[in-house]
């Protein structure tokens, strides 16, 4: 028996988000642009890949500092377009700006953690990563965290790996082509 192994907490899910730096920059720029309102958007990628390829900013029909909701017609258009491209949502993004009821972290930023309402809606999209960017102003520092729900509906935080491109990100056995194994 290997004690070192049994001591590790079992993970119900391999919670990792590997994401290109330019896509992170797009989300953060959108959050800054729309501050103090919440910004929202989605990242789509090839079906089954778990790899975000395109950032699609969405209209927040709530247009408030505390909540967001995708515009449903815009969502249908994006859904149709994604299907045609063989893509699906990989990430849903929204920002947390400073509202009085939202807890602040010791860094002075709003908490980049899903609210009860966030979690209810996360449950509708199993396997999709929910990225939250917290900020206090258009030029403030920001915090970015990513979450998903495990099979039992519990919130699991992703390890976020920001990469320059996916070619060199060692995320799986067949992600990096090995030229010596090609016939």
């Amino acid at each position, binding site marked *: 028996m290997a004690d070192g192994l049994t001591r590790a907490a079992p993970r119900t899910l391999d919670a990792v988000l590997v994401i290109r730096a330019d896509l992170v920059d797009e989300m953060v720029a959108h959050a800054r642009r729309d501050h103090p309102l919440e910004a929202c958007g989605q990242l789509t990628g090839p079906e089954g890949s778990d790899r975000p390829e395109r950032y699609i900013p969405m209209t927040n029909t709530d247009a408030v500092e505390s909540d967001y909701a995708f515009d449903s017609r815009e969502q249908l258009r994006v859904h149709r377009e994604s299907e045609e491209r063989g893509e699906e949502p990989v990430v849903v993004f929204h920002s947390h700006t400073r509202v009085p009821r939202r807890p602040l972290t010791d860094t002075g930023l709003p908490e980049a953690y899903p609210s009860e309402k*966030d979690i209810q*809606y996360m449950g*509708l999209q199993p396997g999709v990563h929910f990225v939250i960017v917290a900020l206090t102003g258009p030029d403030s520092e920001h915090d970015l965290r990513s979450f998903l729900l495990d099979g039992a509906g519990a919130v699991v935080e992703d390890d976020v790996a920001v990469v320059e491109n996916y070619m060199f990100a060692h995320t799986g056995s067949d992600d990096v082509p090995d030229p010596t194994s090609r016939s």
Partner: protein
Amino acid sequence: MSATVSIPTILRTHTGGEKQVKADGSTLQEVITDLEANHPGIKDRLVTDGALHRFVNVYVNDEDVRFSGGLDAQVPDGGTVTILPAVAGGR
């Protein structure tokens, strides 16, 4: 009157994994009743207290039925019913 219904990932447990299924009916209500007959349990995921659940968006062709009659929305023969998870959060 037959429509093609596009099923979101979370409801595919009711359709044996199928992304699209056929259902009969000339209103959304009738289409959902027919869906339930062939895919038991799906109705409760879509409708509560006689109205569409706030966690789903349902479209007939390109129209969100919240703005076009809800469960009474007409479904043309050969039409498309698309179900998507609502995306929202906050506070």
